[in-house]
Structures are given as C-alpha cells and as structure tokens.
C-alpha cells in the first residue's frame, strides 16, 4: 500500500457536518488531551514530530509556535485556506470532508500559543467550503468546542471565516493579513515576521489548512511516533493533488519519501492510453517542470533544492506527449501576469514581456535573441522581487530551459528554416 491515510482517515465516513459522528470517530480526543498539557509540552511534541508547514515553504511549525508563546500581547491565529495555486485541491477536500479536524487542530494550536481569536481565510470561489465551515463553527460553538470556556477549561477561542475575493496573491501570508484588515492584498516588507507584527500589528500565527490538520494526530499519538512516519528529510504524510494526463486524478495521502513515479503510476494508473509522459510539473504553476528521468525523486522539499525550488503544496501535474511545452509555460506565465499585485516593477512589467516572448515561441517566431531575453528576464524577476509570487513564478521557464533546452533550440531553428 502506497497510501497512508491519517489526515484523510475520516473522509466519507461521516457527512462532514455531524459533530456526534466526528466524536464517534475519535474526534476531539486530542483536544481533551491537549487541555491536560501545558503550552510548552504541546510545542515540545510538535518539535519532536518535526512537522513542517504544508502551505509550500516547509518551515518547521514549532519555531513559529515558540515565537508566539514568547509574546505577551493579544495574539491571533490564522488558517490559510486561500488555496489558489493551480493544481491544488487538498485544502478544499480537508474542509469539505472533515472540517472538525481542522477546527480541532486550530483550537489545539490557539491553546498552545495563547491566541483567543482566529480567522480562517478561504478563497471566495470555495462556496461549499465556506458554507461548511460556517455551519460547523456554529455547531462546534454550541457544543462547547469553540467560544468561551472550551471543554470547561479556562481557555476561550473565537473562530471566524473571512472570504477572499479572487486574488491568488492573498495566499502569501502578509497579503492575506492585509486582506483580513479589509485592504488590497499587497505584501509587506519583512522582517518583522507575522509572529511579531501580524494582523493589526499583533503577533499572528499563520498556518496552512493541512498543517493544522496534522496537530490532532501528533497530540493524540505523540510527536515521536509521528516522526517515525516519512523519510530522513521529512516526517509524516503529505497530501498529493494528482492531475493532468493521468487515468486516476485525485487526492492521495502518502508518507514523505514516496517517489513521484510511484504516485503517478501506482496511484494515478499512468497516462490515459499509455501515451508517454513528456514532463511533470510539481507544486503548481510556480513549480519546476521536470522530465520523466527525474521522476524517481522523493516528494520532500530537500530533494527539490536541486531546482532551487520546493516541492510546494503537493500538486503533481502530468503532461503527456500530445501537449506543447511552450503552451504550458505560457499558461503559467499568463496566470502570474494576471495575479501580480503590481508592487514591484520587475513582477508587474516583467510578466508582460515574458508572456510576449513565450507567445513568439508558441507561434514559431522566436529567435536566439528572444531566448536570451527570456532567460535574463526570468532571472531578474526571480532575484529582485519582494514576495514569493515573483520569486517563484519564473521557475517553469528556468526549469524548462535547464531540462528541455533542446526544445527551445529546436523551436528557434525551425523558425530560421521557414
């Protein structure tokens, strides 16, 4: 069995609304246990588990929690459910199919760091998820798992849903906090980091949906047990969003250390009609595009450092030989052109030029000079921009120039012949 279902263990076993059924499926056990522990004990368990953020950057979760604990002012907790990176749908599934697990994870986290108010920022397009959360927060509040004196303890925590309004960049943590404050989602210069100065300048802990969903299992079974799952570099399981040209697209939960190849062939059933795989994009539009010979790599972030990139939040997009590489890269860049917040010139203007250059490649009109311009523009955007959007957006250009250089050369030469 390639799959190991921990976060998805309750999927389809209850309707995602009945709190009674969630409790019958061992829900809120971890929360009760957490209330018998001190803040420091909880953070120690998370440290032992070696849990890292599942929103893309893979930062150790306990470090942010510890920084929060050291703050004495009012504090906020934020769940990042903006999931807008093309190719991702895991957070939507986590919310729609087991929302109480997320709520439980957030309460444990809030209790550990001493936050009394939390936000779940959900992208506006996720109507079902928003409704599901609004209903379940109400139910959890009436049953005493949210609100004042949770489970008869001294701890109180209020949780509210905030909707996004169609801006991918609001997934970036500071842009998201600006948006929660009712402003356009333009990032801030860091440091200070959110744990010092977040929402309304108060210390704020922001984590991805999947990160919070890991807390109940860590607390229930202990951090050490959790750290036995996974690879040498990364612990626990990872939700994988498999899409593109595969037979069985879908959400899969596998331990870290699983190879991309196994996910595609064993879980995805390979490509439809067994058309050869041309390339695979990992981590969504901002991730590297790699050739089939690299697919025996692990899904952990460490392995991805060779691309100067991260595994990202878990998307694996399979592209078979029927598709044109340049069409794919162009679509990625059109996405970032549309989503740039406009704060930095290289991102705002650079994507316009990159799209024009790629259109020339798509239309067999590119020259060697265009290749050089494309390469230098990609480098400039990657190195001179303020937030992760610009820093990662050219990855599909840079990675294809590395691994599919012959495709670029061929396109340029074909143009010269005509």
């Amino acid at each position, binding site marked *: 069995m390639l799959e190991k279902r921990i976060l998805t263990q309750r999927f389809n076993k209850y309707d995602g609304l009945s709190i009674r059924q969630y409790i019958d499926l061992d829900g809120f056990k971890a929360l009760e246990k957490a209330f018998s522990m001190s803040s420091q004990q909880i953070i120690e368990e998370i440290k032992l588990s070696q849990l890292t953020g599942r929103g893309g950057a893979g930062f150790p979760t306990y470090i942010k929690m510890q920084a929060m604990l050291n703050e004495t002012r009012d504090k906020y907790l934020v769940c990042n459910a903006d*999931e*807008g*990176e*093309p*190719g*991702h*749908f895991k*957070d*939507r599934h986590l919310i729609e199919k087991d929302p109480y697990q997320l709520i439980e994870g957030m309460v444990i986290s809030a209790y550990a760091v001493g936050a009394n108010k939390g936000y779940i920022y959900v*992208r*506006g*397009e*996720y*109507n*079902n998820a928003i409704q599901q959360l609004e209903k379940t927060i109400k139910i959890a509040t009436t049953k005493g798992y949210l609100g004042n004196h949770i489970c008869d303890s001294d701890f109180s925590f209020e949780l509210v849903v*905030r*909707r*996004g*309004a*169609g*801006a*991918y960049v609001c997934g970036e943590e500071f842009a998201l906090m600006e*948006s*929660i*404050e*009712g*402003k*356009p*989602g*333009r990032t801030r210069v860091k440091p200070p980091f959110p744990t010092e100065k977040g929402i*309304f300048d108060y210390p704020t802990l922001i984590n991805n949906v999947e990160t919070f969903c890991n807390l109940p299992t860590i607390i229930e079974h202990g951090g050490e047990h959790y750290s036995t799952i996974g690879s040498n570099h990364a612990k626990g399981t990872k939700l994988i*969003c*498999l*899409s*593109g*040209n595969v037979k069985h*697209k*879908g*959400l899969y939960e596998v331990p870290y250390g699983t190879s991309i190849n196994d996910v595609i062939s064993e879980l995805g059933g390979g490509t439809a009609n067994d058309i050869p795989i041309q390339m695979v*994009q990992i981590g969504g*539009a901002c991730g590297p595009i790699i050739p089939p010979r690299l697919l025996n790599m692990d899904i952990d972030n460490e392995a991805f450092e060779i691309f100067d990139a991260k595994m990202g939040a878990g*998307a694996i*997009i*399979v*592209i078979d030989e029927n*598709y044109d590489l340049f*069409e*794919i890269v162009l*679509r*990625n860049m*059109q*996405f970032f052109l*549309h*989503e740039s*917040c406009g704060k930095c010139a290289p991102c705002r203007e650079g994507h316009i030029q990159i799209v024009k250059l790629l259109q020339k490649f798509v239309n067999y009109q590119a020259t060697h000079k265009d290749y050089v311009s494309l390469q230098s523009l990609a480098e400039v955007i990657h190195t001179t921009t303020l937030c992760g959007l610009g820093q990662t957006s050219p990855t599909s250009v840079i990675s294809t120039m590395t691994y599919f250089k012959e495709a670029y050369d061929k396109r340029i030469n074909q143009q010269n012949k005509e």
Partner: protein
Amino acid sequence: MNLQKILEKHAFQKDHLIEILIDLQNEKTYKFVTEEEVSLIADALKVPVSHVCGVMSFYTLLSFDERGKYIIQVCKDVPCYLNDDFNVLTTIEKALDISCGDTSKDQFFTLEQTACLGCCDEAPAMRINNKVYTKLTKAKVLRILEEYKEGILC
C-alpha cells in the same frame, strides 16, 4: 438585504469592507457595485472613497460593471487545459454567440475565464455564479446552458 442591513450585519467595521462588498454584490441580480454605494460605504465605515475604490479594483470577484444574471467562469489553468479535449470556452462562445468577457444582449449570461477552481481532480471545470460544474463534456456544457435558460438550474 439592503446596504444598510449589510453594514449593520458587519457592525460598520472597517476590516469587513471586502465582506460587505461581496455581500452587497451577491444581493444584486446583475452582480455589481455602484459609485454611489461606494461613497455610502466609505462614509459609513469612515474610510476614504479612494480606499474602497482601491479594494474594488484589486479583487477580481468585485465589479463596477453590470454583468449578466449568470456569470459563467471557465477555468483557464493547466490541469483543466490538459483535460479539455473539446474546448469548453469556444463551445460556450458559439452556443451563446458571445465572446469571452462579454454579456449576452438579454443580460442573462456573462462569459469570463477564471483561475484554477480547485477541482483539477475533476477537470475540466467551470463555475456559474456560486456553483461549480466539473467533468465537463460538450454535451454536458450545452445541457447546463439550456437548463439555465429554461430555469431548471438557477
């Protein structure tokens, strides 16, 4: 719910501006916000009009333009593109005789493109107002459009 009610629901809080604008737009048949409403909201929340306009123009889901009763948004990102063997967008353009970005003459449909809807596991996907339709085929798309016209779907 009129604007005053929406403002009250959000207790006139500045940080609820985006929520207020979404709620207001959802109330209206043609899904838009007027300049007059922008001034009213700015006054009520005690923020500059320019701030509300800045928010309106930043977020794709908010609009100053009157749109159709039903806004069709076709996903344009790679995972859907890789599963779209009949071209969802041109199918709808032809069926409704409008181009992407336009509203039909009877103001019934507006056709737009959208970024990934988080349904790539069921690609290709599109959204009509608040409902998402997945695993689209040509026949399914045409049937959905018909059912909206006939009032079976709404």
